[in-house]
């Protein structure tokens, strides 16, 4: 009897001590809270993003945030904005898709949690539609703004439910409307077929076509998963269908891998429609790569869309972009005057400049709430994009237009029609065209 009691007592003490010690240690650590704005001091603002640095979606896309960071580094070297330097933390989420080649953590939610515990003032320039959809409520719940999401979905334009959520690029829907206007004018009466990705990208683009007055004869949606398993052969039946339906115009809302599959399938069938390809999947050097051994580029002559200046244009932003990238030896060690300035780099610099200008407009002292107010009330007309960037309390989509291009070679596109098209984010709002103008660079940024 005595033994059991003593043993019990021993156990009591041990458990007690362990638990109590932990609680004591814990209560001091766990009660650390923040009363100031997280991620913001008078000398520095800390922002972050989840991007596909490695993995399936990384080729090309991994340059976007780095290019924006090059802008931030450039600005930091000049002393920062209003005395504040920008610290940009990138977390690799592999586009949320696990698989070989992914060094990061293939879960956007996990990586966003990691950013929130830094803490960051806001996420700026995170990439992907499904990835960013999955963290909208997490960020909202914690009051963290989700700015300049790299995707053209309409999901970012929901100010009533997500007041801190902002897109940046021209949406797929708006692009679709502009395509519709062009196709109706140039190929009136033709049979038009549509191939799009089976998520917001394809469905929003299709809605834009229809809203812009063009209802395709046949629409097909593909899934990225099936694409990966069957290496593009899954798109061949769709293209064959289009050929049998005698479609002379085919609209592609496809990522570069799917663009390649469609172009390849058409080539095999001897099918030569007029291709109209979304800006997401039309970058010439990316699309041309698998056809290099054939010696010619089936994409030449395709029409696409852009909202950033073409590398060969006279916009003053082009040499400025090259200057910023060349100066960033850490991230772009091999960038010289001979390196191609590709679409991904321009994209990143485009919203990088927008953020820096928003920061300047916000003033010396601000909070998260006042920063968002600044975004909603300022028109940013001096950014690389050819249309001004404007948000309102009812519209958080971002850029609302661009211009049409034609693929001229394996590495270049050229603008066509000489006009800039702008539209709104309503499903069937009109497309307005204006003469092309280019904006200048603000003097403090030069």
């Amino acid at each position: 009897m005595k033994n059991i009691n003593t043993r019990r007592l021993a156990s009591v003490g041990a458990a007690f001590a362990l638990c109590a010690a932990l609680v004591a240690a814990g209560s001091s650590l766990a009660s650390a809270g923040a009363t100031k704005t997280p991620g913001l001091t008078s000398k520095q603002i800390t922002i972050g993003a989840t991007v596909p640095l490695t993995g399936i979606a990384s080729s090309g896309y991994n340059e976007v945030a780095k290019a924006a960071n090059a802008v931030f580094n450039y600005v930091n070297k000049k002393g920062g904005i209003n005395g504040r330097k920008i610290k940009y933390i990138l977390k690799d989420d592999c586009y949320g898709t696990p698989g070989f080649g992914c060094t990061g953590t293939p879960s956007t939610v996990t990586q966003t949690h990691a950013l929130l515990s830094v803490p960051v003032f806001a996420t700026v320039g995170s990439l992907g539609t499904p990835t960013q959809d999955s963290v909208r409520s997490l960020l909202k719940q914690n009051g963290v703004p989700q700015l300049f999401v790299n995707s053209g979905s309409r999901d970012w334009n929901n100010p009533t439910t997500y007041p801190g959520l902002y897109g940046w690029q021209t949406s797929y829907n708006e692009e679709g409307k502009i395509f519709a206007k062009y196709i109706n004018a140039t190929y009136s009466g033709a049979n038009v077929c549509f191939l799009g990705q089976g998520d917001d990208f394809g469905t929003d683009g299709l809605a834009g076509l229809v809203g812009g007055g063009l209802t395709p004869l046949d629409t097909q949606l593909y899934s990225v998963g099936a694409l990966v398993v069957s290496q593009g052969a899954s798109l061949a039946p769709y293209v064959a269908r289009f050929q049998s339906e005698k479609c002379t115009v085919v609209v592609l809302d496809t990522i570069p891998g799917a663009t390649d599959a469609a172009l390849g399938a058409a080539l095999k069938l001897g099918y030569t429609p007029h291709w109209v390809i979304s800006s997401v999947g039309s970058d010439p050097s990316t699309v041309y790569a698998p056809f290099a051994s054939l010696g010619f580029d089936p994409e030449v002559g395709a029409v696409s869309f852009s909202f950033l200046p073409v590398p060969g244009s006279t916009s003053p932003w082009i040499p400025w972009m090259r200057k910023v990238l060349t100066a960033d030896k850490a991230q772009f060690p091999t960038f010289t005057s001979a390196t191609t300035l590709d679409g991904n780099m321009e994209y990143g610099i485009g919203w990088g400049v927008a953020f820096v200008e928003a920061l300047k407009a916000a003033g010396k002292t601000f909070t998260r709430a006042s920063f968002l107010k600044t975004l909603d009330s300022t028109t940013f007309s001096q950014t690389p994009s050819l249309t001004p960037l404007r948000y309102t309390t009812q519209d958080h989509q971002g850029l609302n237009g661009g211009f049409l291009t034609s693929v001229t070679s394996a590495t270049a596109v050229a603008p066509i029609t000489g006009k800039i098209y702008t539209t709104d984010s309503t499903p069937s709002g009109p497309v307005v065209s204006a003469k092309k103008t280019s904006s200048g660079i603000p003097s403090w940024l030069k």
Partner: protein
Amino acid sequence: MRRLTDKRLALTATCLIVGVIIIALSATTVRVGAVLALMLVVGIAGISTVTTKRLRKAHPVLTRAAVTLLVLDASLFATYFFSSITNFNLAIGAAMSIVLLGLSFLTGASGQISLGNSAFMGVGALAVAIWANHHASTPIFVTLIIAIASGAVVGLLLGLPATRLRGPYLAGMTLAFAVAFPSIVNSFSSWTGGDAGLQLPTAVSAPRWLSSIFGSHASLLTLNTVWITDITIVVTGVAFFFMANLFASRTGRAMRLVRDNDVAAELAGVSLPRARVIAFMVSSGYAALGGALWTLINNSVSPPTYSLALSITILSLVVIGGIGTLPGALIGGVIYAYSTNVISWFTAHTGINSQGNLASQLPGIIFGGLLIVTMLFAPMGIVGAARRLWAKRRLRTVA
């Protein structure tokens, strides 16, 4: 014996005094004191049961319950002082260890190979998301039961044709299932959200009484993360407790007999197909539970996550941890949660260009290499190797 109890008495007294002082300093409210007292009682019962050899032998189930409660006790306290990202990773790892345990049981206890557990995880994950989107107010516990049931049903569907299959054919069938799962999800994209997945309509949020323990200055993120982590840890504990009993029970013994010598099993009256199917259903139910917890932790489900690559990861972690062992599944879960951190640390400290090709492939190369090495030299995994070393040491001290 006398000296032992005296030493223990002295130790106990010291701990008691120290403990009282610490509690007096840190207990800010009556509530905190009450929680501590509860933890204390649980701790007492746990340790005394575990250290009493007689009880251990006579009531194994009780002992297992005590061990489980003890581990839960310690873990729940740990979550109190971990940062939210640590808690988050802990929760993910714990949920994964449930999946690993299920596969460990299937392979270790009943000798069947399955490459399809990522798909079963996906079934559970989607079940929670789809249910929550249609019935937002169901308690978490019920949702988890629904997920387990869905997983078990799908496991039954797959397990029935699998009863007669041997190694490579079973591997092939489960592989085909894992490869087909994303396509199946996409075929029903109106229900499952296709590649984009689904969000939970309301996030899992901490109840009021938890925030009163932490005090008013803890952020919402910390509170919610602690809450979901605690739920996950408790569920993990229950799952492990159940499995430990299953291993030791008549059903578990029957399954091991089927694995080792199915002719003998038949002669002993064990129904082979029944044993195999039950094992399959248990493993798929566990996988579904892990997936369901992931959905609750992440507040969303992303179907592309549940791919063949994940299945291979699961099999690998089971092998590395130790097939058919409980601690092996826990170790596997921890490895899963922290491997990327370890590898980034490694690349950072060895001067490999972190954006280059080698760095991005390093996790895969290390992982694959580990698999080969483990299977060739230590097929019973880390736990198996540790047990062998321990047995060798004991032999040496005895001799």
